[in-house]
């Protein structure tokens, strides 16, 4: 598939060059046409900065970015005509209606207003807000505001939609509704770039994703491949008393990355955990009472933990 966005060795600092913070550090990735691409990382990892570099709101200190063939710093208007941004903070006019918000956007972003009326109806219907189109936005829930912001970002028919933390502050119901809208839009050929620190969201939506930490890409692939590449299962073991020396107890089984997420709970990675269950249980129960044993396939959080030694939400 054709690449619509290319980020190559991009660097962005804040503060002075010597002692400032490097928010994006030699970051590279490509996004293909029609893809739903994720930027996954903890808060402060550099995801929003990356989106701002793509839109040209921020200038970069190194590297190159092309959006649909244009450099956002050199030709910001060409780029901005073709992208839609849903920012992290929902920035809609709360005293205006949903309709008025979209017309306001149309005046700023649409060269030709002839088809806008129909498009507004189509988009508000798509995000299930048509019935509430005349209500002031201040009466909307957080999820409804996010859906309105999404409809607004789509109004000028952008080829790429940048969505910063799509479901932040949105309840479970609203979150699933929003995911459904995003998937439907992707099915219609839109390219999405999502920034999120929610691994479930990234897992559910993204075709491919880049995991970012301290501004650097630490892994890039499909969620499935990233988890499979880990090559190990996750074991969560609760015993009484605690296993004091897991390395010694499980010697020879290939146990790695042992951590204690909470008191009494031991977490480790091991290849082929299913085959080792019997051995694990017998070693544990020799001197401990087994409270629970859970074997899970790795999540994206585990991938992040594997690469950084820290949990995604730490």
């Amino acid at each position, binding site marked *: 598939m054709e690449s619509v966005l290319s980020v190559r060795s991009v660097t962005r600092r804040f503060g002075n060059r010597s002692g400032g913070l490097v928010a994006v550090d030699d970051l590279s990735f490509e996004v293909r046409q029609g893809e739903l691409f994720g930027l996954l990382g903890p808060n402060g990892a550099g995801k929003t900065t990356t989106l701002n570099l793509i*839109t*040209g*709101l*921020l*200038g970069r200190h190194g590297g190159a970015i092309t959006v649909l063939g244009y450099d956002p*710093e050199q030709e*910001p*208007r*060409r780029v*901005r*005509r073709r992208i839609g*941004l849903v*920012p992290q*903070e*929902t*920035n*809609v*006019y*709360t005293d205006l209606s949903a309709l008025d918000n979209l017309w*306001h*956007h149309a005046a*700023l*972003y649409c060269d030709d207003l002839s088809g806008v009326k129909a498009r507004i109806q189509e988009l508000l219907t798509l995000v299930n807000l048509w019935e509430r189109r005349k209500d002031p936005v201040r009466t909307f829930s957080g999820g409804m505001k996010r859906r309105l912001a999404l409809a607004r970002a789509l109004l000028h028919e952008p080829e790429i939609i940048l969505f910063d933390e799509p479901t932040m502050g949105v309840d479970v119901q609203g979150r699933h509704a929003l995911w459904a809208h995003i998937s439907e839009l992707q099915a219609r050929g839109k390219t999405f770039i999502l920034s999120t620190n929610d691994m479930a969201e990234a897992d559910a939506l993204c075709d491919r994703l880049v995991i970012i930490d301290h501004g650097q890409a630490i892994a890039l692939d499909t969620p499935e491949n990233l988890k499979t590449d880990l090559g190990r299962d996750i074991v969560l073991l609760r015993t009484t008393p605690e296993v004091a020396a897991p390395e010694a107890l499980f010697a020879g089984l290939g146990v790695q990355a042992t951590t204690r997420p909470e008191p009494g709970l031991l977490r480790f990675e091991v290849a082929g955990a299913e085959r080792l269950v019997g051995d694990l249980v017998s070693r544990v129960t020799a001197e401990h009472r087994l409270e629970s044993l859970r074997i899970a396939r790795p999540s994206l959080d585990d991938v992040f933990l594997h690469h950084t030694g820290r949990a995604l939400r730490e």
Partner: protein
Amino acid sequence: MRRFRRLLANEFKLFRTAIPIHVVITVQPTILYLLMSVILVHPTFDMHVARPATGEGLALVAAMEEVGSPIGLPYINPILVDWDGGPVTRQVVVVEEQRDADGVHPVAVQYYGLIDSNLVKNFRNRLTAAVLILWNESLDARAVTVEQHPWLPHDVPYTVYFGMALLPLTASIAASVLGGALTAQEFEFGTILEYRLAPVSPAWILGARLTRLVLWSLIAAVMLLVAIGLTTGAWPDSFLGVGLILVPVGLIAGCLGVLAVLVFRKLIPAFLVGLVASFVGWLLGSAFGLAAGFGGLYELVSRFTPGTHAVELLFPRYLGIEIGSPRISVLVLVLLSVGMVALTGLAYRWRVLRRA
């Protein structure tokens, strides 16, 4: 008490959460006072006096210098001028002699030009006080008369003048406060991002906002104009003319409101700047009388306000008499408008569009 001291310390630390508001509310009254003192605090009026040729004329000038408040502040600052008897824009006092059956009487003649009835009353009262001193001191039983010779064909009703001078203030408040509020809202709600990313020229965006502010300021001015008309019976000879005069006032004020937000990025300081600047501009801009009538520092300062030029252009629309220099007033208003629009455009580029 220790708890109270801690709480008080916390209160002062919160200064950092609203630095612009603290600065504005602290500094603005002082600025307002300093500017207002030009017209309100100083009691002395400049009064031109034709260089006297007689002893009585010189005695009157001395008496004028003597008139003052109980604490000794002079009410009149007589400025001797060589006057050829031609029309005057301010006022000139001339001491003449009048001969009748009883002999020769000195006459203090007050010629005045661009001065409304309220100021004439003020000047006449002061001049009369000077004449009384002169009479008591040296004229014995001889009569002295104070006459007034207006150059305008009719008196200027103060209610009309005051209402007319309020028109620029109305336009100014509407545009500056509204401009500040609307733009501050964009920063506070984050909607400024919509403008930052919009693929259109910032000139169009700023142009639309300023046009809207000007139009709203005209709506506010029309309401006042109707109120003046209904209460005094005075209507301008051309509504379009009044509108065209107020357009630059609204534009300048609208720019000021937007600029204040681009500096402070918050509503309240921007609101205060718009409000205070409008009132100061009004007070210094011929609010209570034509600048030429006050003379001195007031006139000098008022020449830099859009209000003075707007009032001098409105004067013929309401009172049928051309005053001042309309071409210069138009030029000043146009230059101020262009300057403020350019400044606002630069600030918009710098504060909104600049790539960080």
